[in-house]
């Protein structure tokens, strides 16, 4: 089943078939990216604006690369240089750029629900590139694509997501999609980094790192988002965090055979994940995630553009 909607705001509402459609579509773009001329014309003449109201490097560059390889005119906009600093509302900013005949907005915003809010009041396609603590659908799709490549399947796998679940939109998108796809998801992290009502995800919450790793096929480490802690301290020191919640080569041995380790980046080496794990090509698929990110974003832009034209 194809994806028929104007926007991509999150994965919670998507069916298994819709998620798999994005993954299979991305494979063709991955092949293109590995060819000598990494270019197609499917978005030729279209304008894609990366509207980033929150700092980002890899996600913005990934979207920009994807849009340009599809032949679109990709324009980057960041809030620090924008009229938002002059008091203009988010919607007025978007409407002004829409008046310039923008076809697709890739929106990153610090407030949860911002992508949905814009999508409801804009004729352009909206791709949620991360909204507050809510969702980050393309990151989850690239994670799934990476897992599928390395494990040959998705259904039946056990994934553990470790770290700051509360502040992670990556975790949320992954949890919804993985459960839809028939994967088992476990969660682990300091209780101060766990949402108070984590039960709503329907995932087992582990009590120790050992319990988390044991029986897992996929270990997804999250970045400690110190910039989002609002002044409160979710853990006493990075030393202690590393000791109880960090991933080391020794701990990986508890996992199922041939485990893989994912991380959305940027990495805090030696805190949430040790360098010997990051650099181990037998387990670390972190750079594969980055590579697949471009293919996924090309697939998303291409599919939404087709929906817009049809």
């Amino acid at each position: 089943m194809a994806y028929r909607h104007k926007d991509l705001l999150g994965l919670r509402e998507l069916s298994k078939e819709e998620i798999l459609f994005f993954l299979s579509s991305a494979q063709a773009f991955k092949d293109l990216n590995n060819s000598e001329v990494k270019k197609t014309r499917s978005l030729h003449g279209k304008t894609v604006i990366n509207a980033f109201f929150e700092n980002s490097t890899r996600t913005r560059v990934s979207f920009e690369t994807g849009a340009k390889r599809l032949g679109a005119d990709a324009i980057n906009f960041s809030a620090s240089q924008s009229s938002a600093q002059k008091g203009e509302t988010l919607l007025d900013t978007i409407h002004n750029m829409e008046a310039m005949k923008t076809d697709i907005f890739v929106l990153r915003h610090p407030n949860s629900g911002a992508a949905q809010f814009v999508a409801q009041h804009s004729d352009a396609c909206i791709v949620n590139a991360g909204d507050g603590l809510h969702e980050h659908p393309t990151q989850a799709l690239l994670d799934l694509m990476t897992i599928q490549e390395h494990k040959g399947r998705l259904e039946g796998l056990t994934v553990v997501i470790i770290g700051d679940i509360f502040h992670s939109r990556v975790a949320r998108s992954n949890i919804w999609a993985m459960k839809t796809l028939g994967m088992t998801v476990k969660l682990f992290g300091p209780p101060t980094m766990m949402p108070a009502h984590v039960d709503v995800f329907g995932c087992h919450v582990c009590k120790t790192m050992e319990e988390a790793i044991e029986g897992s096929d996929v270990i997804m480490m999250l970045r400690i988002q110190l910039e989002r802690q609002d002044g409160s301290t979710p853990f006493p020191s990075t030393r202690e965090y590393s000791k109880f919640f960090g991933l080391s080569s020794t701990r990986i041995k508890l996992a199922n055979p041939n485990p893989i380790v994912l991380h959305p980046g940027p990495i805090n080496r030696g805190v949430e994940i040790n360098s010997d794990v990051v650099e181990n090509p037998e387990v670390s698929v972190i750079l594969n995630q980055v590579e697949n990110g471009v293919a996924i974003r090309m697939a998303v832009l291409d599919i939404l553009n087709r929906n817009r034209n049809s």
Partner: protein
Amino acid sequence: MKTLIKNGTIINADGRINANVVIEGETIVEITTEEVQADVVIDATGMLVMPGLIDMHVHFRDPGQEYKDDVISGSETAVAGGVTTCLPMANTTPINDNASITRAMIAKAKERGLIDLLPIGAVTQGFKGDRIVEMGDMIEAGAVAFSDDGLPVSSSTVMRAALEYSRGFNSFVISHSEDCSLCRHGVMNEGPTSTILGLKGMPSEKEEIAVARDMLLAKLTKGHIHIAHVSSAWSLKLIELARKEGVSITCEVAPHHFSFSDEHLLTYDTYFKMSPPLRSKCDVEAMKEGLRSGLVDVIATDHAPHHTDEKFVEFDKAPFGILGLQTLVPLTLALVKEGVITLERMVELTSANPAKILHLDNKGKIAKGMLADIAIIDPEMTYVYDEKLNKSKSKNSPLLNQTLTGAAVKTLKSGRVVFDFPNCL
């Protein structure tokens, strides 16, 4: 001039009777089953004749933010909801923390003459949380109680002083119960829905901790504490405990807290954003039980107008608050239809108990000698609550453009018809 309201069902807190109401001047002079000659005759066949509603918690934004509402539009909104007495909170600009502002608010309401406006003064000067206001002076000017609503009084020492000092004037303190140190950047109830939406939550404990402190201070001081806009089940448990122990404590629940749960926020609709936030379904049920059992004293709207532009933003950036005055009757009647409360209890919650708490001896009852503040309510009338009916300058109600059942069709203030559906007179 003599006015007759005939053929209606008079609902009082202590019972109902099919009878006629005779009004002369500002006062009810007779309740009779006889047909009486009168200058003005109002046929209330099929209608409920209730004492004018007393809303102990409104925000008219006047002075300072008159673009949202002012005393005039607030008065018009009130009578369109059957409300004849309003207590506006002190978080105006400037703050109502002195007798001059209190007098000015009352004078403006009298000029329009639709309602009695009984201002609530601030507890602390400038809402700064340290020095209490000149309560005696403000009571002389017409203030009836004291609250820093919108903000809690963080210092226990200051709250103690406020309770002790107000007791000396036979007045009381209204607690905006919130432990702000526990709700950093929270924008909705902390629960499964906030976890799904990725919105920061305010746990109900931030309210309960403050309720617990203030009830203990009321115990200490023997002052009267009134807990505003209770939203959590545990707050009610604490209030019940305090009352059993003889503490002078009363409380109010807002219609939105017994009508909606936090699941209504799943679409990020900012019109459902309010503080205290919409809580869980269990809390909603607890509010209903409190209303049914008699534990809750008052239904108050916390009518909080905000301009569309302010609400038409990202959820985190929108202000807290919802319109309430014109939806008070349909939402409360929905409880009656659901079997949660009786019509008599509705009158107790919306009129008789507020009158008792506020020592308004001539209000809260349809009886001989009482002030003729009367709401004539059609419980079955179905209508779309749209922009034409809405009297507020603001539109921030999730019920706008929805079909509602039950409305005030005529409102009398001191014997004079001031609202005749759909217009104020």
